Every structure is written in C-alpha cells, then in structure tokens.
C-alpha cells in the first residue's frame, strides 16, 4: 500500500494509460485491474476515481457510453484521440520523473 499523496499524484496518469491500453472500461473494472496489476499495492479509492473520471470527460479526454448489463445500467468510459495524446505525454513525463528520482534519491536497482 502506497501513501495517499503518491496515489493522488499518479492516478490520472495510471487511469489514462489503462484506458489507452484497454480502450473502454467501467469504474469497477478500473479499480479491479489496477488492484490486480499492482498486486494490491496501488489501491485507488472510489472517492478519487469517480471525480477524476468526470473531470476527464469534461476535458474531452474520455467519453461515456451507458449500457444495460445484468439488468443494471453500466457506464463505460472510452478514451478519445485527445485522451490518447494526454496518456502518452503523461507517461513520458513520468518516465523522466522516475529517472530523476533515481538520481535524487540515490536509488540502486535491487
């Protein structure tokens, strides 16, 4: 489990990358995938996931599609072309950030 600060600073990058790879997902699926892929270390709270998703829609990076599944209405989020561009930018920025942190914190690969 990582601190709230670290999750907060990276959630947008993680979600955009996830949708860039998968194309279309619904909220529960995103938290499940992130949880699984991080072996439970990156736990995102719904309290920050949904506000982020709605903000990304507002910014034109995602669009929503509502479907009825198992008798319930399910809202899918699909990444737009602009979203893909943002996902690439943020991922690249983070890659450089990791390299900088390695130098700053004197980290040796284990």
């Amino acid at each position, binding site marked *: 489990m990582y601190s709230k600060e670290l999750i907060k600073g990276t959630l947008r990058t993680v979600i955009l990358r996830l949708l860039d790879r998968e194309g279309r997902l*619904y*909220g*529960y699926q995103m938290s*499940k995938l992130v949880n699984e892929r991080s072996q439970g270390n990156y736990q995102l709270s*719904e*309290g*920050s996931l*949904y*506000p*982020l998703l*709605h*903000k990304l*829609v*507002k*910014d*034109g990076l995602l*669009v929503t599609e509502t479907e009825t*599944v*198992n*008798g*319930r*209405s*399910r*809202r899918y989020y699909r990444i*737009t*072309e*602009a979203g893909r*561009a943002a996902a690439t*930018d943020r991922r690249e920025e983070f890659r450089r950030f990791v390299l900088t942190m390695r130098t700053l914190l004197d980290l040796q690969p284990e």
Partner: protein
Amino acid sequence: MIILNEEQVATVQAHLASAGLSESLSAELLDHLCCAIEARMEEGADFPTAVHTTLKSWPIRHLRGIQKNIRFTTKIKPMIFRFTTAAALLAGIVFMSPGFSPSPVAEVTTCTSHHNEEMLYSLTLPEKFEPPSASPIAGVEMEDILSCGYGMRTHPIFKVRKFHRGIDLKAKSGTPVLATADGKVIFAGSDGKYGITVRILHEDGYITVFAHLSEHIVERGDHVILGEKIAAVGSTGMSTAPHLHYEVLKDDKPVDPLALGRALPAGATEG
C-alpha cells in the same frame, strides 16, 4: 458467475437513495457497489455479509463526499481560478491607483483565500463553452469561400461518393490559418492523406482539425487563443489545389462547422 437479483439490487439502491445523490451518479455507483458485492459473494460470502462489508466502506458521508468532489473538480475549481485571477487583477488596479490605501486590498484577499467551501459547493454554474464557430481564415466568412461542404459528396480524385468529415475553404497558398477558439495543440505535423495538419483540443470535447497546410506555426503542447495564427494554407497530402480542409469534432465525431455558429448540432448536447 453470481448476478444480484432485482430484490438484492433494490437493497443496495435504498442505501444510495438515502445519500440524496444525483440520478446519474447514483446509477453509476449502484453498478460499482453491486459489482463489489458480487465479487465478495464469488469468494464465498452470503448476500447479507457481502452487503454489510461492502457498504461499511461506503458510508453516506463518503457518498456525499464523492458527489461534492465531482462538482468541485468539474465546476467550481475552474471558477475559483477565474475568480482569483479577476481578484488579483482588481487588487493590482487598487494598488496602482494614486489614492491607494491598504484596506481594500486586504478585503479582496480575504474573500478569495477564506472562501467557505460549503458556500462554493452550493453554487451552480450554467456556464458552457461556446463551440468553435469563428472563421479560420481572417476577415472572410466561411460561407463565402466554401468550395465543398460537410456530408456526403463525390470525391474529386476517386469519383466515388464519400462522407466529407469537414468543409473545404478556398484560399491562396500561404494564407494565414487562425485558431477558431481557445485551446491546446495536440498534433502539429504530417498526417498521411491530410498532409501537414494541426489539431487543437478545446473545452467540452471539441477538437478542430486544419489539413493540407503548407506549414504549421504552432507546435504540440502550445496553448492558442481564438484568432491566433497557427498555420498557412497549402496543398500537402491528398489535395488537388491549395485549400483548407477544416473539421470540427465533438467527442471524436465530426459535426458540420457551418452549423456551429447557428445552433447546436444534433448529438452535440450532453447526454
């Protein structure tokens, strides 16, 4: 695979209803909670236990918090930004004025930095982004230089009927091309049949596309304002003569650029 029945879903819905959420958020969270409950039942828990464990981490206070947070990040935050900028400008004017005394500035600062969040949450802002409707060619109406409209047409090279995703505007090579709304450049470069192309992302899911350019002046990542020179007309890519191919996309779907100045296009409303 376990799927909750209607009665079980109604139990979860009742919990959400007590939080007084908006209908669309309530439906979205209902699906999320039901999925979480199903996953716990999948692992062997019975329905009452699964509901109890799931809802324990979703108290009413927490649910209301999500709604507030959504309203804060999508509506209020941009407004605070504008408000703060306006206040800073005002403070600057007061400061610069000859009869300046420190008290008015103090008042301005107080009202921006100690804003009551509860009060902000209760504000509703109907503010909406105006879709890009300006002409990309300086001083000329789009209608006056239109050589090919939006929609079905016979392609000039392939002689087949094809959907035209934008409009073609007749202009001499080198004519300046202007941004039709404020936004951020998400692409500037060569793009296959489109030739040299600039794509700009605007608020509310609008993207404008300028194709067959002779050159682009802006680069990816640049912020542009309405009327800013971004490129020059050309004939790069699949083009027979110098012209500007201009597209407006709303949520990745093309809309008629000429219709935007008049009224909202079909399908461009929020849903």
